């Protein structure tokens, strides 16, 4: 890790928004690539992925391609297996002893589930932000420094912490109280702290599991604005229940639903605009127009 981490903070492009309704053009949507994924660099690719917990098949035949430095949203009703799919990308499902995966998942071409692959290293390169903010009961500084320290960071840790907090749009609010406990922050601040913590290990991909579901609307908006900045450096995959959020904040969307056998499957994926305004599949159209889910 040789890059210099001290930099001027990027300016936020704040766009005024009305509450977007699903079938209209997205307000504030940055120039989204509308071509097929094949034209873009692919960060993560799931090929024919099927997952089991013991004998229960959770999801099957998942084929998703996540383009680099974009926000890809996984949407779908409860039980469709979106979180399971998300957690395969950083091998967090391994924590359940009965979990099995068939198929392959490639991170920039490398197989995440190869026998020689170390899940610990995978998790350094693929960061995760959880549904409920989970800062450690340590100081703000130690929270952000935790990842680099355990991964053998050799460099100025103070600069790394500051840069990460800046990129998470939290620096100004905490720079005078870095020694205070991370748990003394508000919900939205805690979540941004968790984002800073994830960024500090220099991941290539950041996974977000419904990151705003326990936050108030203002904090939610802050996180969404942050995502727009973060994607200039990181690939982001986000699972969300909130369709409006997916429509607002993502470049590409993949829609999953639960089949009659209670296993989840991928229905359709593509540029967000198309998924929401011109979906090809009837199920997708029903979901995004609110007829079910």
């Amino acid at each position, binding site marked *: 890790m040789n890059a210099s981490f001290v930099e001027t903070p990027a300016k936020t492009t704040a766009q005024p928004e009305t509450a977007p309704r699903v079938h209209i053009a997205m307000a504030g949507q940055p120039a989204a690539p509308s071509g097929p994924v094949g034209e873009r660099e692919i*960060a993560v690719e799931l090929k024919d992925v099927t997952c089991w917990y013991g004998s229960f098949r959770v999801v099957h035949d998942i084929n998703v391609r996540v383009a680099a430095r974009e926000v890809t949203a996984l949407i779908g009703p409860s039980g469709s297996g979106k979180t399971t799919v998300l957690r395969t990308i950083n091998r967090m499902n391994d924590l359940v002893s009965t979990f099995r995966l068939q198929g392959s998942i490639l*991170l*920039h*071409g*490398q197989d*995440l589930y*190869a026998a*020689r*692959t*170390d899940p*610990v*290293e*995978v998790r350094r*390169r693929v960061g995760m932000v959880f549904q409920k903010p989970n800062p450690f009961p340590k100081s703000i500084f130690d929270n952000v420094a935790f990842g680099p320290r355990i991964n053998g960071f050799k460099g100025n840790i103070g600069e790394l912490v500051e840069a990460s907090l800046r990129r998470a749009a939290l620096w100004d609010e905490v720079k005078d109280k870095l020694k205070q406990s991370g748990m003394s922050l508000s919900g939205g601040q805690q979540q941004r702290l968790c984002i800073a913590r994830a960024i500090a290990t*220099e991941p*290539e991909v950041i996974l977000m599991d419904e990151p705003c579901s326990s936050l108030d609307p203002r904090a939610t908006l802050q996180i969404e604005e942050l995502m727009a900045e973060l994607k200039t450096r990181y690939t982001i995959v986000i699972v969300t229940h909130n369709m409006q959020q997916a429509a607002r904040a993502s470049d590409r969307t993949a829609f999953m639903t639960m089949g009659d056998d209670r296993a989840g499957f991928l229905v359709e994926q593509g540029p967000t605009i198309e998924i929401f305004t011109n979906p090809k599949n009837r199920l997708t159209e029903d979901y995004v127009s609110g007829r079910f889910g």
Partner: protein
Amino acid sequence: MTAASRPLTRRQPISERVIETFLFLAAALGVVTTVGIIIVLVAQAAEFFAQVNPIDFLTGTVWSASIQPFRFGVIPLVVGTLAVSLIALLVAVPLGLLAAVYLAEYATMRTRNLVKPMLETIAGIPTIVLGFFGLNFVTPHLLKPIFGSAIGTFNTLAGGLVVGLLITPLIASLSEDALRAVPRGLREGSLAMGATKFEMVRRVVFPAALSGVMASIILALSRAIGETMAVVLIVGTSPKLTFNPLESTQTMTAFIAQISAGDTPQGSIQFKSLFAVALVLFGLTLVLNLISNRIVRRYRNIY
């Protein structure tokens, strides 16, 4: 992008395996201790049983280890222990259960913060202090005024009372946990049918918690049986087969302590007899603990 092409392999450092091995060894110490205890007791008791017939030991009703003729029938010691323990239960079960029900169903936050520390204090008192209390207060100032000359300076009743005080917090806290574990739905359901609070407790909550309560009582019994210091000063050193709690007798634990603290030579038959008694004691408490665990485990799945 060079970062992306870095390999995902990183061999698990040796230190991780080493640490896990150390931790495992620490945990295995528990099994080693149990096995060690059993080996020691059995081996030493075997030496005793080489000289004394085990059947005579287990069924004999006279225990005379220091006075000729030597007789080693363990029944008086067992009866002495059980007598103390049963009196202790007679005290601790009502007091403990009433306290438990109060804490689980009636107490406010404020009263809870008074009662629970009190119980924890009683539980934290070193048992020798309880023995002192029994010797210097319970027998002379409590029992003698009631029973007069019918009661000796050393007697089973005082031992039972003191041990009862000792185990009451155990019954109280374990039973309180069992009562609290009863789901709210059961309570609300019965109240919604017009039951009074007492009826809800008596007819619904308490029966639902019964297995936990019983397990706590069995554990308390086991604790009472294994107690030494609280009884060694009070109950006496004259084991005899008697059911009169006003008389003196001796518990298994007190006998073991007496022989160890005294001048008995370590190779003598008296000294060896303490291992046989210890084996009986260990077996008894082990069986009770296993039964208690069984009850908890069998009925835990109901919710």
